[in-house]
């Protein structure tokens, strides 16, 4: 028999058993969607993780582990072991190889979100992803001492808008923090969503951090001494120390030389890390988790395809007569084999296509929500190259798996079907 009528026959026969095959189809669809989803989240999470900062050549902090420095300077997680003297920062920013330097001062928080003290230049210089710069959704950069610019997630979770007043807490966490209640800030700007830690940060001027702690000694407010907000401008608000600094160089090739200069800095023990290098190191360590997730979803695919094989094998029993009649009408054993294999391939391909379509639709619908609430930036797309490989892998495995019922039917069709057993 030529293949075309054979395939039509296979399709019609499958349609006659649409309920059982339909359930198998759903299983394959869901497992394909899961496999592709794991791959997509893995790739995109990696992307948004390694692209948390771009265009910064060096991150400088007190001497500690390179990953620790990245964690607190970029991800605002953990704490600095030590601070950097303001004088050191001034020397570094005046270095001939340095184009710009941004001071970062961390340590205070607001309802669980990190507060970052920096300069207005931060909003121009800091970039993420493929050199995307920060954009204001509303409002503008801080101009006065007690102005604050909040990230998109902070604004969404706490419902802030431009003009709202907020007070900061001393330290991180939520339990029993001392409040800077006497010096409220005014929200003057809200940033666009970036999918990076910027979304979860409240930005204030470096002077504000100094001003907050003017009447503090040894980590606590001095009793009986309170400097009113309106008077802080009479004080010298130049910071004495900062937590870390981001540095951009005039020439990329100077980065190794500058790194050595910072690491051998005479004034105090400092550490300079290349953010791209440190982020790669970070990601290498979580590679294990990534591989485990992937292995689990591969197992789910195998379960789905095993279900397909089981359904088809079980259906051979019901189809004894059908296949025997086909043989009696002149179909060779090879035709029966092709029919069965084609059915398996059809179900797998249809399941995989539906799975990919389902993922595309769901990820497009949920992408804005994921970015807003979980900070994961999913790029809407049909299939990436690596996903395409997986997709092809599912179909090839499904095809190979359906050779099993094909082979069995080929062996049994004639002898079995024409010997009625009652």
């Amino acid at each position, binding site marked *: 028999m030529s293949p075309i009528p054979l395939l039509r026959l296979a399709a019609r026969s499958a349609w006659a058993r649409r309920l059982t095959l339909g359930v198998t189809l759903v299983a394959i669809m869901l497992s394909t969607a899961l496999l592709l989803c794991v791959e997509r989240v893995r790739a995109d999470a990696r992307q948004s993780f390694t692209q948390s900062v771009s265009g910064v050549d060096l991150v400088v902090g007190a001497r500690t582990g390179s990953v620790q420095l990245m964690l607190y300077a970029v991800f605002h997680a953990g704490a600095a072991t030590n601070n950097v003297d303001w004088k050191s920062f001034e020397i570094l920013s005046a270095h001939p190889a340095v184009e710009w330097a941004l001071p970062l001062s961390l340590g205070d928080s607001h309802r669980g979100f990190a507060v970052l003290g920096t300069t207005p230049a931060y909003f121009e210089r800091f970039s993420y992803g493929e050199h995307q710069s920060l954009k204001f959704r509303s409002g503008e950069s801080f101009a006065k001492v007690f102005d604050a610019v909040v990230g998109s997630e902070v604004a969404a979770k706490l419902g802030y808008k431009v003009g709202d007043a907020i007070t900061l807490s001393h330290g991180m966490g939520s339990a029993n923090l001392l409040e800077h209640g006497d010096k409220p800030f005014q929200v003057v700007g809200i940033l666009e969503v970036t999918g990076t830690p910027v979304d979860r940060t409240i930005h204030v001027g470096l002077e504000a951090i100094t001003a907050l702690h003017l009447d503090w000694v040894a980590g606590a407010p001095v009793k009986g001494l309170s400097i009113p907000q309106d008077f802080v401008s009479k004080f010298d608000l130049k910071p004495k120390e900062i937590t870390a600094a981001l540095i951009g160089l005039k020439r*990329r090739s100077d*980065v190794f030389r500058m790194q050595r200069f910072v690491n051998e800095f005479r004034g105090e023990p400092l550490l300079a890390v290349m953010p791209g*290098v440190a982020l790669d190191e970070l990601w290498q360590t979580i590679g294990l988790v990534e591989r485990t997730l992937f292995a689990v979803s591969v197992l789910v695919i195998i379960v789905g395809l095993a279900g397909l094989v089981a359904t088809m094998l079980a259906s051979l029993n019901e189809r004894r007569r059908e296949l025997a009649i086909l043989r009696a009408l002149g179909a060779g054993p090879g035709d029966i084999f092709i029919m069965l294999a084609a059915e398996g391939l059809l179900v797998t391909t249809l399941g995989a296509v539906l799975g990919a379509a389902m993922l595309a639709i769901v990820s497009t619908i949920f992408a804005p929500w994921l970015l807003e609430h979980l900070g994961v930036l999913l790029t809407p797309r049909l299939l990436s190259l690596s996903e395409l490989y997986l997709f092809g892998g599912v179909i090839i495995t499904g095809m190979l798996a359906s050779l099993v019922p094909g082979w069995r039917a080929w062996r049994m069709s004639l002898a079995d079907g024409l010997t009625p057993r009652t």
Partner: protein
Amino acid sequence: MKIVRAMVLSVLVITLPAIAAPAHQHGSAKIDISVEGNKFTIGLEMPLDSTIGSERPARTDKEKLAYASMMAALKNPAGLFTPTAAANCRVESFQVSDPFPGGKPKPDGHADIDAEYLLICANPAALKGFETTLFKQFKRLQKIDVQRATPSGQGKMTMTPGQASAAW
């Protein structure tokens, strides 16, 4: 994802010491590469132990021979590094440091051999990686940590005798 983020961060904190590369580790080497304009710079730093198996000025004839052949290998950059062919790079200049200035051993007993190579590429946009024969030349070398600063960003790669190439 909050939980995932917290998990990721805690895994990192636990595994931190494992990934901080020590400054001088026998059997390993460091390569810093930068690409800017048509300039491709390769900075190499290897503990002498990784190349000739000792870190003192050569005394015996065997040691002197090993040292001389190491120097000969390092002074032939075209034989050490093969950048992407399409980039059409050629060696412009190079510099190999003297591990023992004045012929004296280092006070801490350790010594590195450093070299810097400058290549000029006719088509730098096509430069996507390079291969090295360092592992073939120096059998004691087991690992090279590569840091890169290229137009596409920074990154870190590890080369081994089984994977003697880096791509970005």
